[in-house]
C-alpha cells in the first residue's frame, strides 16, 4: 500500500471525532462517495446523533420528545461507533486518536468535528448551584424542562443571543416570569447589530419579558441547601430567581488537540477552503480535515477572513465538502464556498439570515416595516452587500443570497415590492470588537460595598 492510497475511495481507515450533525453527515457523504474502508465515529455524548435546533424550541415546550430529535439517517451506515467516550489527544506522528479510556484509535485520515459546548458560568461554585443551567445538549434540555416544570418563581436568562432569546420565548409560552439580562445594548446585537436588535427589544417586551440591557449579572447566590435563590446585577439590583440559564455563547472543543501540533485553539481549528487543517506553523496537512462549528476557514466572499460558523447548514454542507476532499485527489478537490444561513424562531417570529451580517457596518431596510416586525434588512461592507436578515419574510432569502454571492452594490438601487417610505442606510451598531470580552478581566465579589473585593479573572480558553 502506498502512502497516497491510504484513504482512497477503495479503502483505508477514516476516523471522525465528533458524532453530531457534521460528523454524521460527513460519514454518510464518505459512503456516498464510494469510500469502502473502515469508518469510526467517536462521540463524547452517549447518544446517537441528534438534532439540536429543536432543543430550545419544541422540546423545551414539551411539544416534541427529546428522543424524537434523532437525526434521520440517509442510509444504513457501516461504521463503528465509539459513543460516550471523548477523544482526549491526537498523535499526528503515530496517526492515532487517544480516547479518554486510554484506547488508541489509528487512522489514515481524520476528520475533526468536535463542535462547541456551552460557555459555562465563569464562577465554578456559583455554576454548581442547583437551578443554574446551560442549554446545549439533549441532557441539558431535559434538566431545564424539569426545572421549568417545577414552577419557578422567576427564570433568569443570562445573555440575549439567539439561544437566550429562544429560551425566554419558551418560558413566556409556558407562562413563566422571566428576566433576561444582556450586557449589550439590545438582544442579538452580536449577530445582527443594535439597530435590528432594537426590534428584538420590542419583541421581548411585548411578550412580557423583563428585559434588562446594558446590564451584567455579577453573582448568583444559593440557599443553605445549595439551590439558586438570588442574582445580583451590576446596576445594583437583585433578582429573586429559582432558575438561571446561562446563555453566553459557546466554547470550541479544541482542548484535546493541545500538543498535537495543529493550528487549533479557542477560536477553532484553522483549515483551508478545502477543509484541510493547518498545522501550528500554518502549513496545510493532507490527512487531517475539519468541519462544522469547530472549523475556521477562509471565505472569499468575506475578504478571505477566517469564519467559524455555528450554523446548522454550515455543519451539513461543510461536512459534505470535507468528506469529498478526504477521498479525492488534489485535482478533484472542491472549495467550500457556502454562503452562511441560519434561522431562529422566537416570540412567534421567524428570523432567517444569509451571509455574514456582522461583516457589514451599515444596515438598510429594503422591504417591509421594522415596526410591524416583518421586514428584510441588508448589511453592507464597503459598498457591497454582505448579509441579510429577515423577520417573517424568509421567502425572499434566496434572492438576497444571490445578491451576496454576486457582491451586489450596497445600498441597493433597485425598485422592489413593499418598499419602506425611507430607504437610507444607517450604522448597524455592532458591539465594538475592540472592547475585549474574552480577555482577562477584573471581577468584583461581595454584595454590599463593605464586602466588595476584586479578583483577577484570567482569560478563558
Amino acid at each position, binding site marked *: 500500500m502506498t502512502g497516497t492510497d491510504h484513504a482512497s475511495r477503495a479503502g483505508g481507515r477514516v476516523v471522525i471525532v465528533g458524532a453530531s450533525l457534521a460528523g454524521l453527515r460527513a460519514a454518510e457523504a464518505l459512503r456516498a462517495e464510494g469510500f469502502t474502508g473502515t469508518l469510526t465515529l467517536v462521540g463524547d455524548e452517549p447518544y446517537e446523533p441528534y438534532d439540536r435546533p429543536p432543543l430550545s424550541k419544541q422540546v423545551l415546550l414539551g411539544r416534541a420528545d427529546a428522543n424524537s430529535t434523532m437525526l434521520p439517517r440517509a442510509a444504513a451506515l457501516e461504521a463503528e461507533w465509539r459513543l460516550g467516550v471523548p477523544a482526549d489527544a491526537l498523535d499526528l506522528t503515530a496517526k492515532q486518536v487517544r480516547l479518554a479510556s486510554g484506547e488508541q484509535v489509528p487512522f489514515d485520515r481524520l476528520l475533526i468535528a468536535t463542535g462547541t459546548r456551552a460557555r459555562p458560568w465563569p464562577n465554578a461554585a456559583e455554576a454548581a448551584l442547583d437551578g443554574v443551567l446551560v442549554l446545549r445538549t439533549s441532557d441539558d434540555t431535559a434538566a431545564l424542562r424539569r426545572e421549568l416544570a417545577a414552577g419557578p418563581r422567576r427564570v433568569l436568562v443570562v445573555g440575549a443571543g439567539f439561544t437566550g432569546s429562544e429560551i425566554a420565548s419558551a418560558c413566556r409560552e409556558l407562562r413563566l416570569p422571566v428576566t433576561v439580562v444582556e450586557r449589550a445594548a439590545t438582544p442579538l446585537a452580536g449577530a445582527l447589530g443594535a439597530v435590528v436588535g432594537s426590534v428584538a427589544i420590542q419583541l421581548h417586551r411585548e411578550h412580557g419579558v423583563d428585559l434588562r440591557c446594558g446590564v451584567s449579572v455579577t453573582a448568583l447566590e444559593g440557599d443553605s441547601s445549595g439551590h439558586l435563590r438570588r442574582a445580583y446585577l451590576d446596576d445594583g439590583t437583585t433578582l429573586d430567581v429559582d432558575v438561571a440559564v446561562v446563555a453566553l455563547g459557546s466554547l470550541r472543543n479544541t482542548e484535546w488537540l493541545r500538543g498535537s501540533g495543529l493550528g487549533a485553539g479557542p477560536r477553532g481549528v484553522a483549515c483551508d477552503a478545502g477543509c484541510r487543517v493547518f498545522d501550528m506553523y500554518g502549513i496545510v496537512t493532507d490527512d487531517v480535515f475539519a468541519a462544522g462549528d469547530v472549523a475556521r476557514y477562509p471565505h472569499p466572499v468575506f475578504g478571505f477572513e477566517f469564519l467559524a460558523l455555528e450554523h446548522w447548514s454550515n455543519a451539513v454542507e461543510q461536512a459534505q465538502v470535507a468528506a469529498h476532499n478526504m477521498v479525492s485527489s488534489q485535482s478533484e478537490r472542491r472549495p467550500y464556498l457556502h454562503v452562511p444561513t441560519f434561522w431562529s424562531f422566537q416570540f412567534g417570529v421567524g428570523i432567517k439570515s444569509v451571509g455574514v451580517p456582522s461583516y457589514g457596518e451599515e444596515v438598510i431596510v*429594503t*422591504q*417591509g*416595516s421594522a415596526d*410591524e416586525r*416583518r421586514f*428584510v434588512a441588508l448589511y453592507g461592507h464597503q459598498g457591497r452587500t454582505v448579509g441579510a436578515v429577515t423577520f*417573517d*419574510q424568509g*421567502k*425572499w*432569502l*434566496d*434572492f438576497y443570497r*444571490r445578491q451576496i454571492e454576486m457582491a451586489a452594490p450596497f445600498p441597493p438601487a*433597485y*425598485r*422592489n*415590492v*413593499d418598499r419602506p417610505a425611507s430607504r437610507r442606510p444607517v450604522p448597524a451598531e455592532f458591539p465594538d470588537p475592540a472592547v475585549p470580552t474574552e480577555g482577562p478581566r477584573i471581577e468584583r465579589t461581595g454584595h454590599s460595598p463593605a464586602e466588595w473585593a476584586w479578583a483577577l479573572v484570567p482569560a478563558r480558553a
Partner: protein
Amino acid sequence: MTAMGTPADLLGQILDYANRANPYPLYAELRKTPVLRAPNGSYVVSTYREVTALIRDPRVSNTGGAGGGSFIGMDPPGHDRLRRAATSHFDQYDTVRPELERIVTGLIDQMHGRRQIDIVDDLAYPYPVAVICERLGVPDEDEPRFHPWAEAIITRLDPRPGQRDTAARAQSEMDEYMSGLIERFRADPGPGLLSGLAAEEGMATEDIVATGRLLLIAGHETTVNLIANGMLTLLRHPDLLARLRGDADLAVPLVEELLRYEPPVQLLARANVALDDIEVAGTTIPEGAGIVLVLAAANRDPDRFADPDRFDPDRQDNQHLGFFGGIHYCFGAALARQEVQVALAELARRLENPRLLQDPPPYRQNPTLRGPRHLPVQIDGVR
C-alpha cells in the same frame, strides 16, 4: 410532430387548443430560449433555475393579474396581512383526513352498479367544492348552491361568448351569500374560516369575501385537474396503478410527481410585472414588462430533473413548481395534497379493472388550468 414555428410563435402554439392534450414538446422547444420575448412584449420564462429565481425576486410585482381583491393578486404588505389571517383560521392538516375519506367514499359508493364512469363529473368535480365549503364553514344545507356557482365562475376563463355574463351573475350571488353568512357569524360565531376571519379585529367583510372566493376558485379547478390528470396518468401506467392498490402510502410521492409531471397550473400569464430592469440568463427584462412563468416547462427541465418526461414516483429531490413558490406558494397545498392522495388511493383500491375509454380524453379549453373535461372510464364494478 409538425414543424415548430419561430420561437416567438411558441406561446401562441401553446395557447392553441389543438395542442392541449400534449403541450410538452412545445415546452421543450420553449426551453431552448430560457427568456423569450413574446410578440405582445411580455417575457416568457421556461427554465427551472430562471423561473425559481423570479418567483423569489422582490423586483417582481404580482399585481398584474385578476386577483379579485384577494391576496393572490397583492404584494406585501397587504398580501401578508390577509394571508396570515387566513392561515390562522384555515384548518388543512391531518385533522381533515376523515372528512376527505367520508366524501370520497360517498362519491365512489354512488358508482355501484355502473359499467362506465366519468372521473371528472362523478368525483373530481363535486369533491373539492364539498371540501372547501366545509373549510369555509358553509352550513351543509347551503352547500348544493355552491356547486353551480363554482362551475359558472370558473367558466369566466372560457373565451366563448355568453359565458362571462353567467359567471358575473354567479359571482355576485355567491358574494352576496357569503357577505350575509359573515354578518351572521359576526353575531353568532360558527366553525370554519369565514367565522374565524369575521372575529378578527378590523377585518372588512369585503376582504373576507375575497379570501373565501379565492379559496373556492383557486382550490377547485386545480384540484379537479390534479385528480383527473392523476387518474389519467395512472391508467396510462398500469404497473403504478397496481402498486398503489397494494400500497396506499405510495400516494404521497405519487402526488408530488404528479405535481411535477402534470401541474394543474401550467403557466402564470398575467400576474407578474417587472418593477425594475431584471437580468435573467443574459436577457434584460425591462421595467414594466409582463413576465410569463411557464411552471410546466420548468418542471420538465432536464437540467434540474433527470429523465424529466418519465413519470417516476420514486424520484428523489423532487422540488417541483406544481404549487408555485415564494410568498405566493399555494395557500391550500396541504389540503390539496391530502385531497388528491385520498382520491387516487381510494379509486385505485375500489375500482375493479378500470380502463381508459378515450386516450387522449377531451380537454378543457383553458391552457393555464389544463386538464380533461371528461375522463370516461370503463369498470367491472366497485369494491
